[in-house]
C-alpha cells in the first residue's frame, strides 16, 4: 500500500505541475464563461447604430416603424424619389441604408428593397421584416373586421405542469426541460472526462514503455500496483481539474453576470440576461407586447426556480461523482491495457475502436434516452457497465427507482473489477513486449498466461 501511494503521488504531482494542466485549468472556465457571456455581450454592444431612410410609397408605414436603441428610421419629405434618397445616402454620412416600400404592398407583399452602402446586420433585416409583417397582418385583420383586442384576448399560452407519481405515492413536480439540461450536461461531462483522462492513462503507460523505465519499476513493485497507481493518480488529477473548473467557472460567470447587470442598471428598462438573449433574436415592437412577454418571462423564471427547488441535488451530485469516477475507472483500465500492448501512440489506433465505440454509442444513445428515460432500452443501457455511466446520469434527473440505481451502481463496480482484472493480465505481459505488432489473437493468449 505504501508503494501504491508513492505511485499515485508521482502521477498526480507530475501532471498537476505541468504547464498544460495549469493552462487548461485557467483556460477551461474562461472558455466556459465566454460561451455564456460573449453572445450576450455581442448582442448588446457589438452592433453599430443603423440609420435607415424610408421611402414609403404605400403611405402605410409612416410613423409606424418604431426606433430601437440601435436602429433609427428616418422619413424624408413626402414625394422624395427613391433615386434622390439613394444619392442622399451615398453622399451623406448620416444614412446607412434606404428602405423602399412600393405602393401595392398590401396586395403583393414582395419586392420590398433595402439598398445599403454599409452591410446591415441580420438583426436589422429581421427587425424590419418582423415589423412590416406584423403591420401588414394587422391591417389585413382590421380590414376583415377583427380588432386588436379580440386578437389579444384569443392569444393563449400553455405550459404543462408535469408531476411524477412514484411507487410510494409521493408526488414530485418535475420540469422536463430542466431535467434534460442537467441530464445531458452531466452526460457530456462524463463522456469528456472518460476520453480526456483515459487517453492520459494510455499515454502514461506508453511513455513508461518507450522510455524503458518500466523494467526498473516493476522490479520494485507489481505491475498491477503500477497500473492502479497510475489510474488512481490520474483520477485525482481529473477530480482536481473538475473542482477547479467548477469554482473558477462559477466565479467568472457570476462576475460576468454582475458586470452585465451593472451595465444595464442605468438604463430605463432593467434588462435581465435572459431577456437580452431573446431580444437579440426578436424585439417585440409594441409596448404592450413587451409587457406581456415580460410577464410570461417572469412566470417562466418563477417556474424554473420552483423546479430547481424540486430537483434532488444531493442525489444528483452524489451519483454524478459516482458515475464520473466509475465510468473513468472502467475505461481507463482498458486504455492502460491498450497502452501496454503497443510501442507508440500511432499503433494504438487498432485497439482503440472497441473501447471508444461503446463510449460514443452511449453518447449517441443519450439523446434517445433523454426523450424517453423510462423505456426498456433506457433501462438496459443504464445497467450495462459500459454504457451506464453516461446513460444513468442522463436518466437520474427524471427520477429513477432506488433499486435500479443500486443495481446499476453495483453492476458498474463489478464491471470495473472485471475489466481491471482483465486489463491487468494484458498489461503485465504487454509492458515487456517490444518491437512486435500485436494482434487480438496475441492479446487473447496474454489473457490466459498464468
Amino acid at each position, binding site marked *: 500500500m505504501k*508503494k501504491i501511494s*508513492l*505511485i499515485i503521488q*508521482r502521477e498526480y504531482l*507530475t501532471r498537476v505541475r505541468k504547464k498544460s494542466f495549469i493552462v487548461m485549468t485557467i483556460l477551461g472556465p474562461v472558455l466556459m464563461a465566454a460561451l455564456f457571456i460573449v453572445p450576450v455581450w455581442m448582442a448588446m454592444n457589438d452592433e453599430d447604430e443603423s440609420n435607415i431612410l424610408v421611402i414609403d410609397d404605400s403611405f402605410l408605414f409612416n410613423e409606424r416603424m418604431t426606433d430601437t436603441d440601435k436602429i433609427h428610421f428616418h422619413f424624408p419629405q413626402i414625394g422624395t424619389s427613391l433615386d434622390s434618397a439613394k444619392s442622399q445616402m451615398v453622399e451623406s454620412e448620416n444614412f446607412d441604408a434606404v428602405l423602399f416600400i412600393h405602393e401595392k404592398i398590401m396586395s403583393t407583399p414582395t419586392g420590398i428593397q433595402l439598398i445599403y452602402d454599409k452591410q446591415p446586420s441580420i438583426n436589422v433585416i429581421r427587425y424590419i421584416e418582423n415589423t412590416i409583417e406584423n403591420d401588414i397582418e394587422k391591417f389585413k385583420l382590421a380590414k376583415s373586421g377583427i380588432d386588436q383586442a379580440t386578437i389579444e384576448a384569443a392569444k393563449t399560452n400553455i405550459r404543462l405542469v408535469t408531476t411524477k407519481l412514484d411507487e410510494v405515492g409521493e408526488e414530485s413536480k418535475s420540469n422536463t426541460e430542466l431535467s434534460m439540461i442537467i441530464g445531458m450536461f452531466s452526460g457530456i461531462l462524463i463522456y469528456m472526462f472518460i476520453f480526456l483522462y483515459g487517453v492520459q492513462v494510455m499515454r502514461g503507460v506508453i*511513455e*513508461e514503455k518507450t*522510455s*524503458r*523505465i518500466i*523494467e*526498473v*519499476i*516493476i*522490479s*520494485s*513493485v*507489481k*505491475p498491477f500496483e503500477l497500473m492502479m497507481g497510475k489510474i488512481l493518480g490520474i483520477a485525482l488529477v481529473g477530480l482536481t481539474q473538475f473542482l477547479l473548473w467548477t469554482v473558477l467557472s462559477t466565479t467568472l460567470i457570476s462576475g460576468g453576470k454582475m458586470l452585465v447587470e451593472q451595465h444595464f442598471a442605468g438604463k430605463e428598462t432593467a434588462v435581465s440576461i435572459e431577456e437580452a438573449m431573446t431580444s437579440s433574436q426578436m424585439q417585440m415592437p409594441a409596448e404592450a407586447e413587451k409587457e406581456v412577454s415580460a410577464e410570461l418571462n417572469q412566470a417562466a423564471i418563477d417556474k424554473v426556480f420552483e423546479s430547481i427547488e424540486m430537483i434532488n441535488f444531493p442525489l444528483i451530485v452524489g451519483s454524478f461523482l459516482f458515475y464520473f469516477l466509475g465510468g473513468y475507472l472502467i475505461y481507463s483500465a482498458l486504455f492502460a491495457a491498450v497502452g501496454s500492448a503497443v510501442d507508440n501512440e500511432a499503433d494504438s489506433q487498432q485497439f482503440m475502436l472497441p473501447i471508444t465505440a461503446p463510449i460514443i454509442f452511449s453518447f449517441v444513445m443519450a439523446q434517445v434516452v433523454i426523450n424517453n428515460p423510462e423505456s426498456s432500452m433506457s433501462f438496459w443501457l443504464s445497467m450495462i457497465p459500459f454504457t451506464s455511466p453516461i446513460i444513468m446520469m442522463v436518466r437520474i434527473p427524471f427520477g429513477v427507482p432506488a433499486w435500479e440505481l443500486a443495481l446499476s451502481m453495483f453492476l458498474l463496480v463489478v464491471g470495473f473489477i472485471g475489466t481491471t482484472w482483465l486489463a491487468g493480465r494484458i498489461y503485465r505481459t504487454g509492458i*515487456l513486449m*517490444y518491437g512486435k505488432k500485436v494482434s487480438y489473437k496475441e492479446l487473447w*493468449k496474454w489473457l490466459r*498466461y*498464468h
Partner: protein
Amino acid sequence: MSKAYAGHVAIEDISISVPEGTIFGLLGPNGAGKTTFIRIINQITGPDTGKLWFNGERLEEKHLGLIGYLPEERGLYKKMKVGEQALYLCQLKGLSKKDALRKLKYWFEKFGIEAWWNKKVEELSKGMAQKVQFIVTVLHEPKLLILDEPFSGFDPINTNLIKSEILELKKKGTTIIFSTHNMGSVEELCDHIALINNTRVILEGEVKEVRSRFRTQTYNIDFNGSVMQLSASLGTYGELIEHGPEGDHMDATVRLVNGATTNQLLGNIMRTVEVTGFKEIIPSMNDIFIQAVEKYNQDKVSV
C-alpha cells in the same frame, strides 16, 4: 526451473547456484534465455516449474528490497528532474525519504554530479543518465545485485569508475550477478560463470577451473635458433603447430602429445636451441565462449 511462453521455450531445466559474496558471470548468446532468468529472479515473471531460494529462504516479494536490478534496456522518465526521480525510485525500493535523501547526497557527491539534481533527465547525455541509474540500483545496499550489460553507454573512464564500484561492493559482501557479452570484463571481474545457450546451461563453474578445463596443452616458446632445430628436437613429446618468421629471436607454438610433461619437452629442446621464454597458452573466455557454443550446436545437429 523452466519457463515457456506461448509457442516457445525460454529456459529449460536450469539450475544455478550463485555463491554468496562473489561476482557471478551470466553468459550466453542473444536470445539464450538470460533475460528470462533474470526476470524470474526479480519476480517480474514466475517460472513454470522450479523454485528459487534466497539465503536459504523461498524467494518472495519481501526479498525485492534486498535485490538491486539494472536492466539492459533501461531508462528514466524524461520530463522528471534527476533528483526527484532518483528519490522516487529509491522510495519504491522501500527506503524512507530521509534515508534515500541522505544516501543520494553521498552518492551524487561521490560521482561528482550534485549539479544535476535539478536538471531534467532529457537534458542529460546517455552516459550521464546511466550513472544516475547505477546509483539508483545500488543505493538501497542490496544483498544481491543484478547488472545486465552495466558498461554499455559508458566511456572508458566511466567504465573504470563503475568497475571499481562493483569491486568495492563485492568487498562489502554484495553478491553480484553480472550479465554481459564483454568477455574481457568477465575475466577481469567474475569468480564464477554460467554459460546459457539455447535455453540450457552448457557450462558452469569457477572461472579459473573452467579455463583450465579448456586447456589444450599448447605452449608458447621464445627461443634463439632455427625452426628446423626446434622441430627436430621435439621428438615424440610434442608437435609444432605454428611459428613466427625466421630471425634471431623466434617464437613458436607447440602442443604436448603422447602424455608427455613440460619438463620432458623442455629437456629435449634445451639441448638444441636456447629457450628464452616458455608459457602455457590458456584459452580466453572469449575462445571458451565460442568453443562451447559451437560444440553444443554441432552436437545438437549430429543428434
